[in-house]
């Protein structure tokens, strides 16, 4: 079993704890660390520095923090696949407007939305970009 480190922003503590319990039940050695936002990259580097080889990192954070942690993790030798995003109960999904590139928020992937920037009617898809941390919204004519 790979050791697991869960990094969770305080606001997602509940989700982080749930994940910790789940991983424990699966028999993994798991550690949960709560982090403040905005994320301090140096602190993250400090946390990651001594982790054993093969550790899996699970993140419960917002998009901006996620990018910073990913970069720090990559610098510390974690591969892309070593870093996973936890499923958070944020109640929102990010939708990338394919017309103007604005990222919109919505409560459901099932319903169409109107882009708050360009007014385009968009249909959310399940095409997800971990780089944008958003789902692609296709235009509806």
């Amino acid at each position, binding site marked *: 079993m790979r050791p697991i480190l869960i990094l969770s922003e305080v606001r997602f503590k509940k989700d982080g704890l749930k994940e910790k319990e789940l991983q424990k039940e699966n028999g993994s050695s798991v550690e949960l660390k709560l982090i403040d936002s905005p994320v301090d990259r140096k602190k993250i580097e400090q946390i990651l520095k001594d982790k054993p080889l093969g550790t899996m990192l699970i993140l419960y954070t917002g998009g901006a923090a996620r990018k910073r942690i990913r970069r720090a993790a990559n610098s510390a030798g974690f*591969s*892309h*696949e070593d870093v996973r995003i936890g499923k958070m109960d944020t109640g929102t999904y990010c939708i*990338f407007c*394919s*017309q*103007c*590139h604005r990222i919109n928020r919505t409560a459901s992937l099932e319903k169409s939305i109107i882009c708050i920037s360009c007014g*385009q009617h968009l249909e959310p*898809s*399940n*095409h*997800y*970009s*971990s*780089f*944008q941390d958003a789902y*692609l919204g*296709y*235009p509806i*004519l």
Partner: protein
Amino acid sequence: MGYYGIFKITGRLDVREVIQVSRLNGFPFPFTKDQYTYSNNSVPLDPAKTITVTADYKNELELKRKLLQKHHHRCFRSLPLSMESQWEIMLLLFNELASCNPESFTFQKKGDECLFQNHLLEEEEAFVFRDVSTIALEPLDLVGRHVQEDLILMGDRHNGLFLEAGQLCFPSNWSLAFVQGMEFKSIHNPVPGIQNDGFIDKVERFISKIRPGTVWERKNWSITVTNMLDTPLETYSVWGKHRQEVTCENAGDLIHLRVEVQRLFRLPMNHDVLFTIHTYLLQLNDLIQQESWFKSFYQNIKTLPEEIAEYKGISTYRTELIRFLENHMEKERRGQ
């Protein structure tokens, strides 16, 4: 070859015939079977050329540069870690342009001092290799303004291929801004059936094993209604509505077979992958003049699985297209 060249040689063809002959001659017809099949149809190229200069060079470069000027954020994206490979690509393409088309381009490199001359456009680029202060644009953005191809740089990291830079002016319904930074496999998620039997994993494995200095080519086809080369997802509301306008009477004028000649090249210095896309359009009225192409095209459209037709955007007018092709077949049979 341009149509003026052919006209001079024959002297007997009328202008319409001449244009048709020229378009058909240079067109990379994609179908090799009379039935749609799903495959990685890549072949190695010898000589290993990543780009092609055609008679449409000046027109396409003019369009490309207009798009880059007006919509730069849409047409060019890069991550900082792509710079080394961008430099390598610039050198590679300037070299290739000059060595394959010496009458149109020259390239000299003395130490790190470089001079590229584009005689077709009467321009030159002087720069010092790997010195960003000597160029006004990023290297990929600069060299892309001298080739007809769209250029995509896939960074080969130990855990997959990632889209790290691109100059994309003529996409077929996709967005560079969205896929920037994405992994190869995730980019292709919307393609129907791509996950079946580990197909996408096999393709990625294939690309990751391409040897430095070798070029592999495949042809990818779709259909564009109207003759627009630039059909990005960002302007779908402009060009997508034309799909509703196709009838069995106007299909020959409106519908164009769109073929992307895609080439993959492993960069010897940085080990990343250069992906070039040269897009060709052929009006259906021209295509049906070539009997074997017409038959093959008809069979492929007819046997196209519904989910692929939907993905390629053909579903809206597939019935009208087939009716047009069958009407043409009937006319031919009657000898009209």
